[in-house]
């Protein structure tokens, strides 16, 4: 699946995360930047959730910035899915 435009989802509130994503030229790979208030405790698991989702949605060329305020897994997944949908041509299309 291919991103079309830059997009964002989420908030800076506690227990939330904000994702900013943008497409990169083909074969650029993934550039992931994670900033989190709980980076030392949960940075690895956060990163894994993000990578697994990008794999699931076949997002290979993407620049992703995440600013996390202690979001739980369902929130991380929801915000990233929202950002991805917003970045696609048809945001209401099912990508589950």
């Amino acid at each position, binding site marked *: 699946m291919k991103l079309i435009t830059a997009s964002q*989802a*989420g*908030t800076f*509130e*506690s*227990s*939330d995360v904000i994702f900013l994503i943008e497409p990169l030229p083909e074969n650029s790979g993934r550039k992931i930047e994670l900033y989190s208030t709980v980076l030392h405790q949960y940075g690895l698991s956060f990163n894994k959730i993000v990578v697994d989702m990008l794999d699931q949605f076949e997002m290979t060329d993407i620049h992703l910035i995440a600013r996390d305020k202690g*979001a*739980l*897994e*369902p*929130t991380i*997944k*929801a*915000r990233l*899915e*929202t950002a991805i*949908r*917003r970045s696609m041509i048809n*945001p*209401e299309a099912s990508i589950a």
Partner: protein
Amino acid sequence: MLYIPGNNPAMIQQGGIYGADSVLLDLEDSVTLSQKDAARILVRNMIKDIDFYETEVCVRINNLGTPFGLSDLEEIVPLQPSAIRYPKTESAEDIVNLLRIIVKIEDRHGLPHNQMTIHAMIETAMGVQNVFEIASRFPRIDAITVGGQDLTADMNIIYTPDGAGIDFARKRIVMAAKASHIDILDTIFPDVNDEEGLRRETEYAKKLGFTGKAVINPRQIDIIHEVFAPTEEEIRKAYRIMKEYKANTAAGIGVFAIDGKMIDAPVVRRAAYVLKLANIEIP
């Protein structure tokens, strides 16, 4: 029933710990138009993964007349929350249309049609006019709720703390729910700092026959429970009535007296209801 904005993860993930009988994850008025998609996905994930313990989970979707209602149903129905709350219900036809879509989605996912119930929210003058047909025609509707804020706006009147403008609507809606033998939940009390006002309004709602009340802040839950829960004196009296009733019925006596007051079938029914509310087995 505790309203929780559907785009607020911090509040949703704590929804099960406040002691509310149910939480209402809201995709409608508490979510801005630009965040409808985000809230829908967040609520879907939260229902899947978060433990709400004993608290029932309901979801208020957007009306099908908006661009969001159908997408809400597609995401939420497969998860089968306890109930879907349908806002701005104005006619039985609205429910026919809603159920047609819900059943289609359930069929697609191999789900039963009798698990998730519907709460019809009455919050327009037209809805008030048609409430009995809405309440009585559909077995899946197990509760009617009053939306006081929207109703006030629809009637072009100013909200007052005494609820005078929506008093007729409240009473008509209660009667429709009672005649249909379903629950009836009162509207929210918007001023979270006015605890006395909340208590007064809740006591009034209880007198009218409401079986519960929506809250917008966990601070309001205890007051609602205090008002709706039967007192110790009421429970003792109900228990005594039911005990005497059993003895008198066995002796073939239909009407009897306790402390000089006549006890007949309606009094017995009320006593049984009090014990049910108190989770006490009928003697």
